[in-house]
């Protein structure tokens, strides 16, 4: 059964959500799926609805809701580059809403265990909430970003994007039609030269670091700062022994940063390893758009939840 719900946040704003209740009664585990950012509670390509409907059939109560300023809820984010809003989310814009909703959800469903799930910004919010909220028993983190966005770095290319773009430009160099475009001033020269410059710079720099076995500052990911609020929340969270499932898209630009600047640095101790399940999803982009990736994702969530509910 799906039920439309409205919950007031601490500022008196009405938040809209949909509660999925299993027909045969709940197994005692409830999942709250958190908005990825500016997209609403259905998630990109209705991913959240697919997840919610599947796990609800397996006996879990599920709530998807729009935080303030998103979807059907009250409030508004200001117009401008979306990255401004992302920065706010990375710093905890939706933490208060999520705490209020968690309280409401527990009372409404009588869930014995509550798990927060989210993609991208939703994964960040989940961690920021869970570190201080002992009602949360687990986290399903899909493509969390560990780097703090910054407006002046919006246009700076990620290593993976740079490599793909640079290779495509190099291929075009042997295509007569594309060359004609280049000499007839139809090419975006700024983007072209910036990409190639970044690509060669990175190639040289990474070769240098490989040969010198050097390591850059662990708090800086390729020149972009780690979100230390997220990192500290994670360390505090795993310190309590609670579990987290990290689902990482193999073709997401944030995967590189997650692996090299977060996983390799902060997830190596036995205690932390015991709390984390890290699964890389094949053929997946940031939003798990491929049908194959969606299948893997849904199965992974389902089997991890089964393990968590067995501990009840």
């Amino acid at each position: 059964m799906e039920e439309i719900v409205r919950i007031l946040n601490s500022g008196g704003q009405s938040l809209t959500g949909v509660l999925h209740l299993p027909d045969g009664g709940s197994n005692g585990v409830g999942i709250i799926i958190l908005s990825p950012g500016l997209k609403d509670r259905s998630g990109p390509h209705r991913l959240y609805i697919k997840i919610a409907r599947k796990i609800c059939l397996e006996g879990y109560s599920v709530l998807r809701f729009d935080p303030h300023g998103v979807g059907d809820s009250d409030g508004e984010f200001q117009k401008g580059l979306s990255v401004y809003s992302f920065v706010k989310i990375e710093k905890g814009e939706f933490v208060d809403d999520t705490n209020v909703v968690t309280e409401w959800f527990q009372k409404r469903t009588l869930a014995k265990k509550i798990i927060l799930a989210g993609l991208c910004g939703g994964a960040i919010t989940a961690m920021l909430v869970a570190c201080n909220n002992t009602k949360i028993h687990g986290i399903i983190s899909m493509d969390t970003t560990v780097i703090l966005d910054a407006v002046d770095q919006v246009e700076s290319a990620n290593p993976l994007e740079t490599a793909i773009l640079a290779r495509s430009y190099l291929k075009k160099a042997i295509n007569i039609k594309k060359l004609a475009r280049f000499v007839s001033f139809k090419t975006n020269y700024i983007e072209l030269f910036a990409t190639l410059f970044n690509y060669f710079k990175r190639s040289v720099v990474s070769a240098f670091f490989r040969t010198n076995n050097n390591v850059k500052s662990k708090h800086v990911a390729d020149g972009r700062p780690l979100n230390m609020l997220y990192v500290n929340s994670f360390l505090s969270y795993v310190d309590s022994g609670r579990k987290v499932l990290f689902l990482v898209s193999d073709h997401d630009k944030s995967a590189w940063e997650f692996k090299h600047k977060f996983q390799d640095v902060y997830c190596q101790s036995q205690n932390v390893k015991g709390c984390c399940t890290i699964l890389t999803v094949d053929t997946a982009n940031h939003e798990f758009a491929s049908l194959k990736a969606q299948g893997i994702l849904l199965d992974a969530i389902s089997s991890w939840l089964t393990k968590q509910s067995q501990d009840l």
Partner: protein
Amino acid sequence: MEKSIYFANSSGERIYGTFFSPTGMEKAKKGVLLCQPIAEEKIRVKRVFINFARFLCKKGYGVFLFDYFGEGESAGNFEDASLDTRTLDTVCALNYCYGYGQFNFFGIVGLRLGGSIALIASEEAKSLDFVVLWQPVINGYEYFQEWLKTSLAAQLVVYKEIKFNRKQLEEQLQCGNVIELEGYSITDLLFQNLRKLNLIEHKVCKSRKYLLVELTSQGSDLLYIKYLEALKSNNCLIDYLKEKKTFDWNNMRFYQPLPDSLFNSTFTWLESIYNGRNS
């Protein structure tokens, strides 16, 4: 006041919608049904629709916003829906609105494919006063070709090369295979519907008022000029507005949930039609 509800479409499937009623006016006299785009375009512009509904509501209009079968909160999977099912859902939503309110001035506003759906559905509705088309999709095949480009971009990210070009993707559909675009499963059913879609060939009601709004950051699209000429030569009561494109349905790099100018110009046109009719 905002009230979300579920109602059944013609196949008995559950459709999600929200009524926006002006404060103190449970039964508004003026009403609008909003038709959203489909797939990821719908998700990207959701907030524009919510804000437009709230904007009109403050001006005394009752507004109904709904999700087609296979989209948003409605039942079903995207791959089971087509242009035909969406049109039927829109007709159902219209009938639901008639039952809910006591409107004496009522019409539809639709964006992109939602505009095209609004126009097609309006053929079935006799008592509509107006249809507003915000950047409607005139040619379904061209629209689909643009959409296919997202598959090429996705292939480059995942495979570092284009494994299937647009022609091959079309062939896959025609062979009964499902292809993926931006995370949505696309079937031949939707493809064939879009392929047939050509608004220029669609009938319009000559006693109804139409507004075509072109949202552009450059010059006019020749297809809109052609469409406008076709409607005018058919004695259609159509007005045309060119508005600056301040929000994007293709990506969310820039966020603009409140395109004031579009809201105001549409409202001004609605009021002029309403006042003209009542004078």
